[in-house]
């Protein structure tokens, strides 16, 4: 038998076959189906399909995350239809106000996705769950209606690109810099219709919150999935999730899945992380990647810390450490959206919210917020935003003539202090944040 890559093994497992080959169309069983506001769109096709019940209420997760609390009459109407659907079909995993969060963060931190799972979601960044050893991919609402009804989905087995990460990352360089560098090299369609499998010593050393950033942005390479094999870091992360209780064995059932030694990859990219510098994706494509020190952006109107890519607790911690005792530059607005309510609560407990607010930032309830120009920090004409999110397409965050630059949380934080795009290494020496004198507003 020919060797298989990890993504191929996952699809073999889910389609009940010993072997799958590239290009083959396989019918798979879905383990986790996630729908956010797109659920409002799938009600109609779901009913038209003649479905009278969902295939498994326990495997469906519904985080309301794009406009929460409702930003307009039309989003309120969507939310009302979502709540009604969840009640009608007795879906227990509705994440509404009070425990809301960005859908991908909810899937990860609640412990819905286990190694070996097939996860689909009505959002392109569903790829993120691949950091937990799953095959995770985005689909549209009509297709999700079919999954809700049948629990099944066809998949074409994609070729796999291997990304080998050598060396180690030194702060303030982060996995965001890694993934942006990769997108810069591969282009925004470099992994189109393919799966990306990450490996190498830098991955072994990478904490989960940073792994999630890597797989999250495989979407910006056009990838169908981004996968990292399960290891001790994965198991420790999952064991600490709310859903882990009583599932220790289940979490480990497919923990040992690895690519075969003789697996064939379509391409291999090797990156030495110890040589990486902070990078920025300039407007208007995530592939337009340059070194931060080579790009001059003299006036930044807004810094956005948010999105499924980089608004986890540790990201906020990095930002707060840089901001502590200092103040955001006059003329620059700092807008923060923690990725989930539980992150918000941790940040409240640890004082991060106080630190960032005192430094001049504004905290918003957890949601996608300004990332897609939805609410809370939408940009006006010609405004410039430096953002920890994943896309900087034309008009993505507001007016078509606004501009966004994608960076790591550390780069975003120092930029907020300086009011211009700034290399965070100016604030660090030998991987440590340099002590600084407090500067008043």
């Amino acid at each position, binding site marked *: 038998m020919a060797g298989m890559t990890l993504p191929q093994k996952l699809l073999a497992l889910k389609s009940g076959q010993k072997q799958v080959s590239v290009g083959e169309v396989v019918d798979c069983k879905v383990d986790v189906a996630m729908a956010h506001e797109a659920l409002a769109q799938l009600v109609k096709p779901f009913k038209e399909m003649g479905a009278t019940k969902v295939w498994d209420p326990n495997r469906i997760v519904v985080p309301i995350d794009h406009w929460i609390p409702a930003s307009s009459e039309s989003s309120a109407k969507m939310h009302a239809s979502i709540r009604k659907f969840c009640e009608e079909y007795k879906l227990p995993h509705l994440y509404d106000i009070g425990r809301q969060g960005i859908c991908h963060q909810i899937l990860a931190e609640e412990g819905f996705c286990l190694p070996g799972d097939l996860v689909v979601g009505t959002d*392109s960044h569903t790829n993120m769950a691949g950091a937990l050893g799953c095959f995770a991919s985005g689909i549209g609402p*009509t297709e999700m209606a079919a999954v809700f009804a049948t629990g099944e989905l066809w998949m074409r087995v994609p070729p796999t690109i291997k990304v080998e990460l050598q060396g180690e990352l030194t702060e303030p360089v982060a996995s965001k810099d890694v993934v942006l560098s990769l997108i810069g090299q591969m282009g*925004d369609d470099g992994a189109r219709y393919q799966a990306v499998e990450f490996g190498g010593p830098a991955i072994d050393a990478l904490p989960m919150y940073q792994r999630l950033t890597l797989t999250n942005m495989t979407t910006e390479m056009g990838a169908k999935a981004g996968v990292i094999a399960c290891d001790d870091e994965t198991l420790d992360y999952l064991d600490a999730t709310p859903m882990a209780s009583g599932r220790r064995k289940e979490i480990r059932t497919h923990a040992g899945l690895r690519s075969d030694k003789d697996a064939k990859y379509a391409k291999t990219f090797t990156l030495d992380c110890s040589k990486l510098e902070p990078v920025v994706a300039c407007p208007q494509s995530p592939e337009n990647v340059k070194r931060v020190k080579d790009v001059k952006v003299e006036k930044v109107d807004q810094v956005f810390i948010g999105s499924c890519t980089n608004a986890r607790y540790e990201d906020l911690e990095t930002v707060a450490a840089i901001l502590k005792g200092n103040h955001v530059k006059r003329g620059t607005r700092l807008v923060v959206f923690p990725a989930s309510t539980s992150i918000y609560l941790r940040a409240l407990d640890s004082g991060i919210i106080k630190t960032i607010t005192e430094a001049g930032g504004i905290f918003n309830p957890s949601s996608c917020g300004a990332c897609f120009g939805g609410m809370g920090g939408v940009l006006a004409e010609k405004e410039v935003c430096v953002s920890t999110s994943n896309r900087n397409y034309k008009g993505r965050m507001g007016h078509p003539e606004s501009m966004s630059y994608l960076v790591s949380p550390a780069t975003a934080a120092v930029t907020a202090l300086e009011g211009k795009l700034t290399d965070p290494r100016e604030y660090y020496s030998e991987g440590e944040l340099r002590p600084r004198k407090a500067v008043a507003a």
Partner: protein
Amino acid sequence: MSQALHFKTQFNGRAWALPDSVDTDMITPGKYLTIIDPKGLSEHILEGWRTDFPKQVKAGDILVAGDNLGCGSSREHAPLSMLGAGIPVVIARSFARIFYRNAINVGLPVMECPDMPKDFVKDGETVSVDLEKGIVRNETRKLETKGIPLSAKAIEILDAGGLVNIVRKKLHARTTGAHKAPGAPPEADFKQD
């Protein structure tokens, strides 16, 4: 293709030339995502690319794009806006995967033409498309390029008029006991562990 197909496979219309990497934010900007119906979405089609496009596009027009059409979000609004505008078929050198899947699922025929030259079509020229033969012609300048014929899966879905009808048949077969898969009864399929 031996069997007669139920969906239209030949088209002739005025072309719009879209550049590479036209993303879903250009097709349906984020501020319109609370609109769900195709007609309403068509009022803003490609507004993020050209603000006056919704006024200029007419039913029957054909979109001819470069690489990676529909990259970005999983929003089904994008192909729905095209259906709403009466665009009968979309051609591109390549498609982003979710856009492609969404288009087929909602019943919008699309064809990938990897060898299509960059200046194959200009706005306003007439193009003809034959999905079965896998051919796109620029009738104005008498040019021709080949497309990748649709996969069996895509044909099956388009032929049924979209994924909704396929699943409806499947569910119906399950409840009436017809067309059972060999081996286990369908109910057993739902059990994961």
